[in-house]
């Protein structure tokens, strides 16, 4: 696999960090090298939240994203802030409720709407996003991603999260 430098952005409370942790875990299970890190403000909810995952083969080296190859944006402010200056070939998956800035490689997907309407719970937006990202980038086998999701989500939410993952992959 070519080195993937991925950013996950949105608002604190959307499960952005958890989504990035799950993807790093899945990459590890699939036999790749992965690191995950995050930046956030002192507030637990509502501030702009950014998580990073780097996936590669062999030594990871520097652990922060220098040149993003992928960006997930679930809020307008995170899309505006983090799309600025990325390469034209950086794949951006943005929630379809957002106004996409011109000149970028943006794929709009109804992530939050799918979570709310199809699954019935907005809080699974992060897992819907994971399904969508993996279907688009083909990073790990879908069953490996499912294994990683089930390792991290709270007990009793297995079914709803599996549905969310599948709905995301179908977007």
């Amino acid at each position: 696999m070519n080195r993937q430098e991925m950013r996950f952005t949105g608002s604190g409370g959307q499960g952005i960090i958890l989504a990035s942790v799950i993807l790093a875990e899945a990459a590890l299970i699939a036999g790749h090298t992965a690191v995950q890190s995050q930046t956030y403000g002192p507030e637990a909810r509502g501030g702009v939240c950014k998580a990073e995952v780097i996936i590669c083969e062999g030594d990871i080296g520097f652990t922060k994203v220098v040149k993003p190859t992928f960006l997930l944006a679930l809020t307008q402010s995170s899309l505006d802030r983090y799309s600025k200056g990325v390469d034209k070939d950086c794949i951006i998956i943005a929630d379809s409720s957002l106004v996409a800035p011109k000149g970028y490689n943006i794929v709009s997907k109804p992530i939050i709407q799918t979570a709310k309407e199809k699954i019935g719970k907005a809080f699974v937006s992060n897992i819907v996003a994971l399904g969508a990202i993996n279907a688009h980038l083909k990073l790990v086998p879908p069953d490996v991603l499912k294994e990683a999701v089930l390792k991290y989500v709270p007990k009793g939410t297995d079914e709803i999260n599996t549905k969310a993952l599948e709905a995301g992959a179908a977007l």
Partner: protein
Amino acid sequence: MAAKQKEKRVLLQGNEACVEGAIAAGMRFFAGYPITPSTEVAEQAAIRLPQVGGRFIQMEDEIAAMAAIIGGSAAGVKSMTATSGPGFSLKQENLGYAAFAEVPCVLINVQRSGPSTGLPTSPSQGDIMQARWGTHGDHPVIALAPATVEECYHLTIRCFNLSEKYRMPVFLMTDEIIGHLREGIVIPDPKTLKIENRKINKKIPPFAVPKGEIAPQSAPFGQGQRYNITGLVHREDGFPTNSTTIAGELCTRLMKKIEDNVDDIIEYEERHLEDAEVIVIAYGGTTRAATKAIELARAKGKKAGLFRPITIWPFPAKRIQEIAKKAKKFVVAEHNYGQLVHEIRLATKDAVPIEFLGKVDGTIIMPNEIEELI
């Protein structure tokens, strides 16, 4: 590399790896007070300790947490606390007590931006000098700095081993970069680990050091040896004294524990030093940017190498002097306004030009910033 890839790795945060390492080293008591970015150490200790028959207590503040682990260790249980910036300041008085009373314990300091409450969620290496001089009076200090999550695991074990061997507090000076980083690590078979336990001899006075030994051999409280522990200057039986002779001997003995054993305590990593003209000196979370910078510079034909102190205190001055002889320039990078660079200047006495890169804005040093100075 290929073989390493095949081993089973688990995804752990640096802070979580510290706890796993501590438990492997025999830690069975943790007292703490949560503070970003160290909180996951306490959280993980709260989950893991009951599973292995240990105890976790959340104390009313950082001062009490430090006091509690001194008590835990005096009772013979390997004990640890974790904190950051403001909490490290609060623990200083009791750290001096532990150093003077020769109570083994481990403190994980996940450094964040300061001063004061600073930027709680941002990385820093601003407590390096505080680790050395934070508590009053001359006292011995051992401090290690991990650069990977795997090292968080192994160096926490080493912190416990050193603290038991030298009977003193030992610091793991990690930082927000490594503390909050998740990466895959191999958890070794516990049987392959070297674990040190304090030597005990109830037949000699509690603070007497037998010939050829490094530290006192008092028994844990409650095991049949009655003695006093104090932060006052004390005799070999533990009771206070105003004897200037004893004061001089005791304080000197404590400093000599380190001075006479630097080769046992000091560890460092070197990369490409065989041909390096420019040597980048970095440690802890800054290392990963330095390593990348060296890779970028070497790709452009520049002869750059890395010197990374793994042991920060005692400082590897002798080795710095040796490598300074061959280098044309040092580049020192730290997430502070310049701390360890003072020790490097002191050791090299201007024998080699030093370019310093420091950051105090809470952002992370990037590889290109270091590369520009190479």
